[in-house]
């Protein structure tokens, strides 16, 4: 289904994470991790490579090493893409940088731009859009506003959807028009179930969907989105204890449409804005169709 979506609705545009840059304590340096293993042909698809850099990697990278880190990242990306025969014009750097890593991160971006010669795009999280005077505006060509994860992930069964809810979103929308970068937007199409035990969050599971939770042999519904485990058992590799509560948070076509409508009002007009649906992979179990995507994208 992902392949079909990609071809029909997404105009064959795909953001693909190639590797992460993480701090390796043993090696005392930032190293690539989780390198992409491509299993199907990407022919005919426009790929924007994504590199995820952990904030910790930036924290421990000394200013003098920033430049060589950028060179290494660029070299590895060139190699991995050329192995796959991928041509690309843009690179997206994904990083939840903070006030303390701002300087290192921005220096990295400048150096990376110099080495790669590509257009750079950086992810912008909601707290960064709200406090640009503190977190700074990254020196890139374009930003990708991540319009999700705005609420607190909470054990409170009545708390609004943390992935997207209109009310929490309003805390951020007012700042959007003033941000000093052209912005693409990422909308959430993922879901997860929050496992709650004795009033505390245990874990988030993207692989548990409504279909699993609605099975009356295993769960009893407490409300529309909350389910209680009836016994202790294994399910999809997870261990569930009798009495565990699962709060499902996800997006449907309607809430996605609402998010699109809400954020589009605050975005400055821009040609060819990319709307990124995060993330369409085999783990996101949302029934989402090309038709929905086209309708929602029409808001921008």
């Amino acid at each position: 289904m992902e392949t079909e979506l990609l071809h029909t609705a997404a105009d064959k545009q795909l953001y693909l994470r190639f590797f992460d840059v993480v701090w390796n304590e043993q090696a005392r340096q930032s190293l690539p991790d989780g390198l992409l293993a491509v299993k199907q042909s990407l022919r005919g698809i426009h790929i924007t490579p994504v590199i995820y850099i952990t904030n910790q990697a930036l924290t421990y990278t000394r200013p003098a090493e920033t430049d060589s880190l950028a060179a290494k990242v660029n070299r590895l990306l060139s190699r991995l893409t050329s192995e796959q025969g991928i041509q690309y014009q843009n690179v997206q750097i994904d990083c939840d940088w903070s006030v303390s890593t701002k300087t290192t991160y921005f220096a990295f971006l400048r150096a990376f731009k110099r080495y790669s010669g590509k257009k750079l795009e950086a992810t912008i999280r909601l707290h960064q859009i709200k406090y640009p005077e503190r977190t700074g505006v990254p020196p890139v060509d374009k930003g990708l506003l991540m319009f999700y994860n705005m609420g607190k992930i909470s054990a409170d069964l009545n708390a609004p959807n943390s992935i997207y809810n209109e009310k929490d979103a309003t805390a951020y929308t007012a700042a959007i028009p003033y941000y000093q970068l052209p912005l693409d937007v990422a909308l959430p199409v993922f879901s997860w179930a929050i496992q709650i035990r004795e009033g505390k969050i245990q874990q988030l599971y993207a692989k548990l969907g409504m279909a699993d939770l609605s099975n009356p042999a295993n769960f009893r519904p407490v409300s529309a989105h909350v389910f209680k485990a009836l016994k202790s058992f294994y399910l999809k590799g997870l261990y569930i204890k009798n009495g565990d509560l699962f709060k499902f948070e996800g997006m449907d076509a309607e809430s996605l449409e609402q998010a699109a409508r809400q954020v589009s009002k605050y975005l400055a007009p821009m040609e060819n804005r990319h709307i990124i649906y995060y993330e369409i992979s085999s783990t996101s179990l949302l029934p989402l169709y090309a038709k929905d995507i086209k309708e929602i994208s029409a808001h921008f």
Partner: protein
Amino acid sequence: MQKILKKFLLIFSFSLISAAGIVWACGGGDWDEADYSNFAPEAFVDRQYSPFFYNSWQSYYGTDVNDNSNTRYNRQVVEEWDGHLKNKVAVKDVNTLLFTASYGGIDSAYQYFKGKLSALPATLPDLKTSGLSKKQGETFFSYLLLAKQCEQFAVSNTTYYWDEKVPLVTPAPEIKGSLEKAFKKSRDPFVKQRYWFQLLRYAYFEELPALKADSSAGPDNSGLVTLFRQHENSFPKNSMYYRSLGYLAGHYYKRQDYAQANYLYSLCYNFSSEMKIPSKWSFHPQNEKDWAGSLALAKNNEEKITLWQMLGTVHDENRAIENIYLLNPKSEKLDLLLSRLINRIEVPSFDSVMDTGARPKIKAEDLALTGRIAAKGDTRKPWYWNMAAGYLHALNGDYVPAAKYYAQAKSQLPANDRLLEAQYRLLHWNLTLSSLKNIDGKAESSMIADLNWLADLRDQKDTVANLRYQRALSESIRILSARYKKQGALIKAECFQSGTAFYANDKNIEAMKALLNKSSKTEFEKTMLRYYPYDLADLHYQQGLMLTYQEKTDAAISSFEKAGKSAAQDMMANPFNSRINDCHDCDFQAVQTKKYTPLTLLRTIKTIQSEIAAGKNLYTNNLLLGNVYYNITHYGNARDFYQREITVFSSTSPMDIPKEFRPVFTSSALAEKYYLRAGLAAKTNAQKAKCTFLAAKCERNAIYNDLYNEPANQKKYYWEFDFSTAYAAKYFAELKSKYRNTAFYNEIIQECGYFRSYVNKF
């Protein structure tokens, strides 16, 4: 690696989670299970399980855990070869050949052994003189050469650096041929079994790349199962056998036959302590059906029990205990699970970290389970179950049943087990402490022995390896202090747990001094004072300190004279100096021809005061007093004058100074008074300007203090305050209107941007 990769798909959610509630538990390495626990698993559980003792912040408990798949069995392998070679080759040489020498190196050593090479590099062992027969040597070296080739695919480098190729090495087919040939040819069962292992491992890695795309797909052409089954009975059930079995399990796991895989992993887990970590790591039932399948594969109750222990250790101690107990109440595999159950409950919740008095919630099912099995008394270690049940009940506030379980345990304790006896004593003390109501003389006498014992443990005068006494120690201090406070016995409360507020009242200090000075202390008082952190000298210093700010110089000197080292330490800067811009570091580094101590500082104040009384050098002397009273506040260069343990040592921001002392240590009123007097005595306009400017600094500090002390600002960080426009308007106006033509005025315009911005603005 696979695990980490999956995490990143959801990276945003993970970062949110850690912010939401578990941050306090992940502070890094300074968290120790012994800090919050009263219950040492070492007292009850076999050592072979120690990596799986409950650990709230790391994968494994203890420091001697080898979690490296590449080196885990090295020691064992060396021992096995050493036995096989009948100790003829030095262990270090076996080690070199097995693990550090390259293929070429091994080959050279082999050629040298055979006499085909005349010289050998010094790094390689000479086996020619070892006494190995030609045949033994040949067998050993041939195996080594093949095994070395297999390392290409079998030894994984888990760290990926920047520039190498993605490491996925498919075994070369010619190795397989060589292995098969060697296996067939080999007559020596020791080496033959190793070739069998190599072949199985080869088959496992050979099919891996094909399985990765869709691990359930395709018929099994690997031949691995047949190879295993065909020969398994030809070899002893030793570590080589179980390591081979591990690859069979891995094969099933990759082909998604989880029932088989997890069952086989449990056999490996049960075999040796070395195999426990990798087997437990690999154990992953997916759905209840395959878990039931694993149980059905178990050949007897003991095998079922192993499976349950693994489930219990990984997920659910309670359920595992229930099931193992049904299968065999005497099973030693219950021990680990019970210790984990207790230790997990002991971990402080976020609420109890915030409020140390909060009682943990003990689930009824845990109370019932431990109580029921303890009451039955049919386990291998009935005292263990009684202590566990008693402790859970005590934690739950059920002191009467707790005492009953403990009494049972006491009657069952085996003799001459020091850790177990200490563990019992600790739990019993914990119950005494928790059930304490009014503390009278009788109660005090009964506590003396245990309180001294805890203090001995704390001071390392007594040591019991592995005993976890930190929680008991801190709870004793907290509970006794709170109890005495409630009873109105402030001195005793302070002895157990010291608080700053106590020292704001001089009467309290006098009472504490009286206790410390008492010549015939009771046994309880002596014990109690082992918990009191200060001595007489500290108290004298505290009194002298407060007298200094009250300008009772003589009395302060007399106190400091009794304060010993505290009042005799060199101060970091000269406290009689002043500067336009406060710069403590500059003052610390400045050449100081005379070093002051708190005592000599006060004596100097006294000399200056008497000169002032005699009308001598009024300008200079008042200026010096202004400086010293300025410097011994938060704003001056002599914070070390007041920064002591009682008044909080490390207060870098005024907000860190305890509120009882903050007004005194931050006020520049005394300094201002003397600067104004110096101004009155000044002869020149430049002198007057200087005094006015120094008074302006005091005025500005008062503005700062007002902001810091404002109730609405109590939760702010000091960098959140904005002082850029808080001008010392009164004295600045005076400077501007009266002293504009002095040289000093130009100096401050140059040096003090704050003043400059005022002048430009007004």
